[in-house]
């Protein structure tokens, strides 16, 4: 029925387009029109289609809400909201013919009949109202084809509104992120104290299902998770910074144009490899390598999920970010500075160390911060290579856990949305979002400011 309705109003719109366009093009043979014929056609199609579609959308939304509320009344004896949801879904599924599973409950069959009657009436009413509206608007739009009528202006106004809405959409995404994280985080803080979360030293979110079990409370002190994240990010930066920066220096100052044109894209391939591949690489190659190294130096205290493994593989992934951002910073330094130094008899390395790097220091710091934010937010490598147990330690050979590992661990598999265990993932994500946001804002501001300095 809905599909038929959609086809009906779209064909009406197409008909309106053709009708108005041909009418306008006949008119334009003898007159100088304000708008070209196809704008008149588009105007008719727009008027016919868009209000009807919008109405259809809101209609379905409201009817869905009403159905859900009325269906719930049939299962008013049940207190568990999750179960009611399951039952009402079952009713809808049965009534639509998607399943033939009958739930053993007194309210089930009456609910099915109620739903079918409601849907039947709704479909008929919806069809009549929307097709009438569409038809009326179609008829209405036909009257507008005139020499003076500014169809183009209206259409263009709509296009600009759509463009503005698209741009504003990005803001809504951010607001969506903040609100969805904030709501769940606040719900989490209903059951766990903020200070216990931010400054507590013990993290074990696994909660017992029954209240009388031992250790049912769970413990949500996130400090070990934060330190684990910092430790792994630190190891990653220790790997990535020297390699990335020296490659950038070499490629921007020393390498010939030929070498640069090959080496740069090759290094950037490292950034294009999906992180899940790095995770697999860490498990299958790097972990055994570190284990053998440990055995070789008769060092046996090494955990198989040690921070060193995850951190160093993460570091490899970060190299191209550091390299390309540093490269941008170095090449942005005006040639005159470099050439002046060289003309004074300094060697290229002295020029680089004493002139170019100080002159591009802001940019390098910015790139460093962006890379840190990448390292903190990266998920798959640490999920696969680091452990889930959050130990409060700074020993790189121990197993530590990160914010992202905890989020994945807490939210995959079965979840109930009322337990602090799942909600704690949102609190962690909120912290993660906040920290990466701050790092990004700082680094973007630094980079921007410094770029302006030389322009």
């Amino acid at each position, binding site marked *: 029925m809905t599909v038929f309705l959609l086809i009906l109003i779209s064909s009406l719109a197409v008909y309106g387009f053709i009708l108005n366009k041909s009418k306008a093009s006949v008119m334009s043979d003898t007159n100088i029109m304000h708008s070209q014929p196809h704008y008149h056609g588009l105007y008719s199609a727009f008027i016919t289609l868009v209000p009807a579609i919008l109405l259809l959308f809101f209609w379905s939304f409201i009817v869905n809400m009403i159905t859900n509320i009325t269906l719930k009344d049939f299962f008013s004896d049940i207190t568990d909201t999750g179960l009611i949801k399951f039952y009402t879904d079952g009713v809808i599924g049965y009534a639509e013919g998607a399943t033939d599973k009958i739930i053993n409950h007194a309210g089930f069959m009456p609910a099915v009949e109620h739903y079918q009657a409601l849907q039947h009436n709704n479909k008929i009413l919806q069809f009549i109202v929307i097709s009438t509206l569409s038809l009326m608007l179609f008829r209405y739009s036909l009257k507008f084809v005139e020499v003076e009528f500014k169809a183009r202006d209206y259409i263009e106004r709509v296009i600009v509104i759509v*463009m503005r809405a698209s741009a504003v959409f990005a803001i809504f995404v951010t607001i969506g992120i903040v609100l969805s994280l904030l709501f769940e985080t606040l719900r989490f803080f209903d059951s766990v104290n903020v200070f216990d979360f931010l400054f507590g030293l013990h993290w074990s979110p696994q909660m017992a299902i029954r209240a009388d079990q031992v250790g049912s409370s769970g413990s949500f002190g996130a400090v070990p998770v934060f330190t684990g994240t910092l430790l792994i990010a630190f190891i990653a930066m220790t790997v990535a910074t020297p390699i990335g920066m020296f490659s950038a220096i070499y490629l921007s100052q020393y390498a010939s144009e030929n070498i640069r044109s090959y080496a740069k894209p090759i290094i950037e391939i490292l950034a294009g490899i*999906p992180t899940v591949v790095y995770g697999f690489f860490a498990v299958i190659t790097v972990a055994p390598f570190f284990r053998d190294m440990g055995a070789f130096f008769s060092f046996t205290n090494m955990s198989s999920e040690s921070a060193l493994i995850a951190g160093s593989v993460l570091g490899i992934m970060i190299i191209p970010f550091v390299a390309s951002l540093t490269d941008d910073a170095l090449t942005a330094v005006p040639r005159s500075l470099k050439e002046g130094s060289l003309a004074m008899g300094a060697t290229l390395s002295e020029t680089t*160390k004493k002139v170019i790097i100080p002159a591009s220091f802001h940019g390098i710091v910015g790139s460093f911060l962006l890379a840190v934010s990448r390292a903190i937010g990266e998920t798959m490598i640490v999920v696969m290579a680091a452990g889930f147990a959050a130990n409060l330690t700074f020993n790189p050979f121990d197993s530590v856990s990160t914010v992202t590992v905890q989020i994945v661990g807490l*939210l995959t598999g079965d979840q109930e949305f009322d337990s602090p265990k799942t909600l704690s993932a949102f609190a962690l994500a909120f912290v993660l979002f906040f920290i*990466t946001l701050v790092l990004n804002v700082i680094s973007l501001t630094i980079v921007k400011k410094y770029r302006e300095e030389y322009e």
Partner: protein
Amino acid sequence: MNNISARNKSEKRFQMYGKTAVLIAIGFLVILLFNIFSTGISAFKQTYIAVNLEIPADFDKKNINPRTELNKHFLKMFPEATTRTERRALLSLLSKGARYEFSELINQNKERSIQGYHWFLASADLDMYIKGTVKRQGDTAGRIDENQMFFIDKLLSKNLIELQANKYLLSSADSREPEMAGIRGAIIGSLYSILIAFLVSFPIAVMAAVYLEKIASKNKFSDLIETNINNLAAVPSIVFGLLGLAIFLNFFELPRSAPLVGGLTLALMTLPTIVIASRAAIKSVPPSIEEAAIGLGASKVQTIFGFTLPLAMPGILTGTIIGIAQAIGETAPLLMIGMVAFVVDVPGSPLDASTALPVQIYLWADSPERAFTERTSAAIMVLLGFLILLNLTAIYLRKKLEKKW
């Protein structure tokens, strides 16, 4: 500073540091790719066992149990298998998939007789041994015991074990049995997600880019949108997964594990990338062309759709392809919206439960079965193949369509 030779030495040293850093970075890439390829290449071959079948044409082929029938023929080849343990050891060399292959063979030859040796899928344990992944130690190898090894040696001496092309890898979905597991379901799931992500993010992103570059006047509001988009580009992908979980699953109650939701989530994630690339492309269109169009009486919107966008399209498409390539490899947001399930069916629509290629890699990498390791590498090779294809398209587009003004 006066010692020239010391300064030259330090110059040389500095240059060497740079060279070493570049070589190390490239070395990592080579090691990574070499590792993946060397472990993955063997997964494109699969071990098969030849079983001698003697089924006459008038045999009642409808009412047979393919499993017992196939086993009967296999056992007939080895009269020396007498005890229960020996028979079980022999039969365990065949995969569960062999019986499906057998019933397919029967269905194809309903009226005809089936004679001679036919190849059937071998178990993963045998496969691992034949490929040399599991080494032989005396009369055992990994999970293969003495009884099994006895028959393996017999089969090998008669040349009845062979490596053939792996037809399951690319044509079937996930399975508990490594030898029957494939990535077709994951590939289809990925393609659906990517298609939806593209359809949603591309128009919105291009419109937003046009608005920011050509229509918006420079004020606080457009600045806000701009910083906002730049920051969104750097938000960790897992946060987008949580957004998808909260908005699409909990609020709009869309089906869990569906490529539709995955696609929408990835769309939000790629949006900023495409906006930033599109803005750069639009900015590079020379203003003279637009001014000429306006001078001839075109309106702003006509200029944009008639001249700016077509001329900026190569750049926009390149940026889009790069964004899509990122989205294809993205795993974390898909884990959040439940696309991390054991799905044995190839999804038929974007609303069916499904995994995606990177998620399949994650799932297999997590599996304790040895045989899944090479399949993980093979799946990675396929994923990297897709990425290379996309990037080559992007490079081609840039080279072919880019105009120098």
